[in-house]
């Protein structure tokens, strides 16, 4: 039957197909369409081009934020607090004239990045126990004016076509939610194009890699001795590797804690402390205008910071800077432990593997550890992230 059919089919010379032939033909046309469909409807190129363009746009705008200067920027700070310090003199025209100069802040030729970094550096925000606590309550006008300035600029640059979100995040201890943030724009959707870079912060706390090395050398004290001895022990006592790695991990944590303690103490000492101890130009200006007024102003600010910290459960120390230091240290260490526990263990395991297998030297091991710990301190820089996405018409 099959043969006959074949003979018949082949021998058929009537010039038209059988229904079966047509059926096969239609199936094959469909298959061809399916094969061609991706090629016809494919937009890899377009998507890539659009992505590239959006990325460029994002990069370009971010670059202008880094380079672009705001010729005049102003805000006011601590006007109400000065009035309190002035007491009965607040209505004096001499006081009023001088107050305008002291409380009014004018900045010239600063870049957007400068304004944002300086703002973030003065907020002293702590995210803890699900709350956002901003210690410096004087920054409201600065932040509001900065947001307006940034919005105006970004709207002018790309507001007609793109939505955007700009964030400047300063985390002096990496992944620890203390520091400062500047943020404008709408929530970022998944399809947004994001560009990010680092910007230098105004603080240049004297905290070098050598300091870290010193801290690690003094903090790392396992039952097997220092880093070199501990790693050597891995080679000698392979059976106890889990225990040794755990000790090494603990040593690294101790070093991280030591480094955090040192860095935060140093940072508070070099930034907040002198101001709250009634030093600096602003306090001096107020003291000149209102003899003793600068000290009152400083006490007022310290009192409010102390009160905020107390409400947040901080352990109150003799001085407000001690309280700040202690509280920041405790929050930072807790957060680091929560966030970096597995990372550190994995790092130690990797290093142990490489060292045991003679893939790296003990000096390289140390270097990795130094780098890992030093990289966790980021007082000197913040991250700026710009996300843009096309507006839907």
């Amino acid at each position, binding site marked *: 039957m099959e043969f006959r059919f074949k003979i018949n089919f082949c021998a058929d010379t009537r010039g038209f197909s059988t229904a079966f032939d047509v059926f096969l033909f239609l199936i094959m*046309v469909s298959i061809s369409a399916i094969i061609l469909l991706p090629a016809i409807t494919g937009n890899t190129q377009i998507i890539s081009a659009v992505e590239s363009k959006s990325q460029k746009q994002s990069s370009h705008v971010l670059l202008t934020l880094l380079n672009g200067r705001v010729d005049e920027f102003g805000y006011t700070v601590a006007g109400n607090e000065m009035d309190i310090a002035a007491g009965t003199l607040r209505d*004096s025209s001499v006081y009023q004239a001088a107050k305008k100069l002291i409380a009014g802040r004018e900045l010239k030729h600063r870049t957007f990045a400068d304004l944002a970094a300086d703002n973030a550096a003065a907020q002293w925000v702590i995210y803890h126990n699900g709350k956002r606590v901003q210690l410096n309550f004087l920054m409201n006008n600065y932040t509001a004016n900065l947001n307006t300035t940034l919005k105006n600029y970004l709207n002018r640059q790309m507001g007609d076509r793109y939505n955007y979100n700009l964030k400047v995040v300063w985390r002096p201890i990496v992944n620890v939610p203390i520091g400062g943030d500047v943020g404008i724009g709408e929530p970022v959707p998944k399809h947004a194009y994001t560009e990010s870079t680092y910007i230098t912060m105004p603080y240049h706390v004297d905290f070098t890699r050598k300091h870290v090395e010193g801290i690690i050398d003094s903090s790392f004290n396992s039952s097997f001795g220092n880093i070199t001895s501990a790693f050597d022990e891995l080679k000698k006592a392979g059976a106890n590797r889990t225990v040794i790695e755990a000790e090494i991990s603990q040593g690294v944590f101790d070093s991280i804690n030591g480094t955090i303690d040192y860095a935060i103490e140093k940072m508070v000492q070099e930034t907040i402390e002198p101001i709250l101890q009634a030093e600096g130009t602003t306090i001096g200006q107020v003291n000149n205008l209102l003899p003793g007024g600068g000290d009152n102003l400083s006490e007022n600010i310290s009192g409010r910071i102390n009160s905020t910290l107390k409400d947040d459960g901080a352990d109150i120390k003799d001085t407000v800077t001690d309280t700040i230091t202690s509280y920041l240290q405790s929050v930072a260490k807790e957060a680091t432990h929560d966030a970096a526990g597995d990372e550190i263990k994995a790092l130690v395991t990797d290093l142990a593997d490489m060292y045991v297998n003679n893939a790296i030297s003990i000096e390289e091991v140390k270097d990795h550890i130094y780098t890992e710990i030093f990289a966790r301190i980021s007082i000197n820089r913040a991250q700026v992230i710009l996300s843009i996405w096309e507006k839907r018409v």
Partner: protein
Amino acid sequence: MMRFRKDESARVPFAVIGIFLIFISTIASINLNRLDIKMAKTTSSSSEVTSADTAIQYARADIARAINYAGMDALKSIGETPVIRQDNNSEYYGDPEEFNKNRVKGMINHTLNQYIEANYMHDAFAHDGYSINVDALRSWKDLEIEPVRMKLNRSLNPPVLKPGEGYAKGYETYWKISVPLKVHIKNLDTKSELMSEPVTMETITTSRYPLLKDLADEYSQRLNGGNAAMVETTAFAEAYTWARGYMQYAGYPENENIVDNEHLAQIVNGAVLLDQGFVFNSLDPMSIVAFVKASGQKEYKDISLEGGSLKIDPMKDAFNSTGNPARAEQEFNKVKQFDFNATPVADFINNRTLEESEVSRKIDEISKSVYSGSIKTIVSREQVVTSRGKHADHPIDRGIVGTNSISEPVKDEAMSANITRDTNLSPGVLYGEVWKVDWRLRHKWRKTWTETVPCGESTCTVTRHHDMITNDYQTDTVTFKIYAVQDSYYEQVLNYAKTRQSRYNDLNNAFTRQDVKMYKDLNLEDVPESYRSNYFTADIRRNYILQFGFTDPNGVREASIDGFYDAWLKEEAEAAVDDIRNKINDEVHLDPGINYVAYPVPSDLLNASKEDLISKIERNESRYVDRARYMTGSRYSSAGAKVISLVREWYVDEVKYQILMKHEEASEQIDNEIQNQFKGNTEDIKTANNDAVKFLSGGLKLPVGFAMEAYHVDENGTAYPEEDINAWNESVTLSIDQEPDYLFMDASESNKELITLGMRNINIFGPTGLPVLPSMNPWLAQFNAWQIEVQGKINKFEVQDVDDEVHPNAIFGHEAQVYVRKNQPAVIDDLTGLPIGKNLPIKFSFTTGTFILVPPGKTIGDREGGVSEESPYFGKII
């Protein structure tokens, strides 16, 4: 298959076509997708290349910011602790200017390395798979600083000595920092370095430290020597001197001392603040409070600023200081209008109370000379021989050998009647006589002849002669004429005009009596007669005639003969002078604009008054001299008229001359006294007194934070045109903090730190002052002066840039750049911890003076406590 090939029925099954379709679709789809992916990859790879570029762009932008942060931090530091006197052992070499710049480089180098280590090493700066690493800087000496200059348009400017005049090329306002860096780009996936190249990064440090420093330096300069603060102090002190001095002149005893240190301390504080306001357009608000409190006026809360400034009026303060401001102002204005006119000089020349006044002496001198003539006699002789003696054989004339008159000279009476006068008053004959006399002349004649006489063996010829005397008779006619050689000669010497003119032969009808008003003027009529009676007697004439040899007219005596003038002449001349003096005194008054306010240096006032008075006399000079009144035609109507006219001419000229001389002498006397006292500072002090007035003419302000406008200038100090890309301007508002707020010259021992002012004032001419008496007369004015010596120190002087608060602050957001001058014996280098020099407070000293000139008749000066008043710490302040 063979059959399929051989099948010619053209029948192709659809299935076969379909297979072909599938085959072609597959190939097309594969190729299209491959192309799409290739294009996308191309796009993507260009994006990867861009990523490296973007990374370096981000890094460059951020490094520029880091340099700015490092620069600002350095400028903050040197602004707070500038080195004014450098330690030469420090590594930062050079003069203080260069030294501080090197410090800045050192600090930038250090800070930037901190940033580099934290942010630009160990692949810390990563972007999209690429990292940017930067090598640490090697030496601060590799850094460069270039100033950006700007000039200031101030809201408040002084009338003179404007700030900025000494900064023709503009103030250094910003510094551009150049940093050579070595930048590495690394692919983090491949761990390979893509590029490593040196890059010089440049950025303008946004702190205006250089501007603050330049302004503080300028202020310091202006406080010292014969500069702005000295002028401003002089202005305030001048106001006090006048207000209190003229009160004393008016006889109000409450102002025993005109100038005292208590007021001077306020004055110097005022000047220091005023100039602070001019330089910075701002000053320490607490200094305003302290200044107002020191003058005992108001407390802090009651002080009212208008438009951000305190208005001050030094004249008002000066009037208030007298305790009777209304009266003080009244006296001030009264003396300001005092008429230093020509009267003292006009009266002095015409002072009848003197034994012999200048005018009287001059009238006598002119009268005597005008009433005189020079007369001489001219003699001519005509000789006629009336007969000669016979001498027939004696032909040779041997001349007259003897004469003798044979008659007395005979005066021809008729001759004198024929004498005519020369009516043209040119030298002419005043009188003439003709005399005759007969002479017998002994005339010798000779005759000669020759004779031959034996002469040895031959003969010789000898000439013989014979003389004879005959009598000739001659008659001489001798004519005498008396001539007026010159009449009414007078050499008019005019001192002011600097002329010396001989006036003579200019009388109408000289030698003839004239009727002048009610007087008879001899008009030299008596002169010829006087001559004749003295030089033309009969004996003289007889002797002339009988003694030959007097035929030469020049040989006859010429004599000057004084004529006679009546007493009325002097009275008339004196009356004429009185008339002129009265007119001058009535009509010539000093321009009210010439007073001590317009000319605060008395010598200048006298010079100005001299010019004014002389010019006013000159304008009326022809009326005062009134020459036409004394002329008939081109000649003086008479000798008396000439005398009076010459006296008038001389008097008017002499008044001018004496005004010139007396005022100049007086001016010189004052200048010499000032010079003796102030030595090398004299010109500065005189200039200061003149400039000072300009500060008193307008309202003065002590501002708190007036905005100024800074504009960018090129290397020559020229503003860029608006369309130039380099053109920009910006506002500058400054704030000042000085300690102490008020410079005290006296305080309790425990508070020595606040004693920052030393004062000494010397009342140069004591309680009475110096009478201005040129050549001892007349008494033009009374003069006094005060030498004021000031030494001061501002323990701390801080300029704050309050509209460019660049420095990040962890609590207040930002704070101002400052520039602080204070005593800091060891400025410590932030990097090495070693002392590198000293910061020093602003110190100043200057000497000035004030003057007072009051009308003659009263003394003026300090009356209590001696001529010198010195504050307790004078000499120990700086």
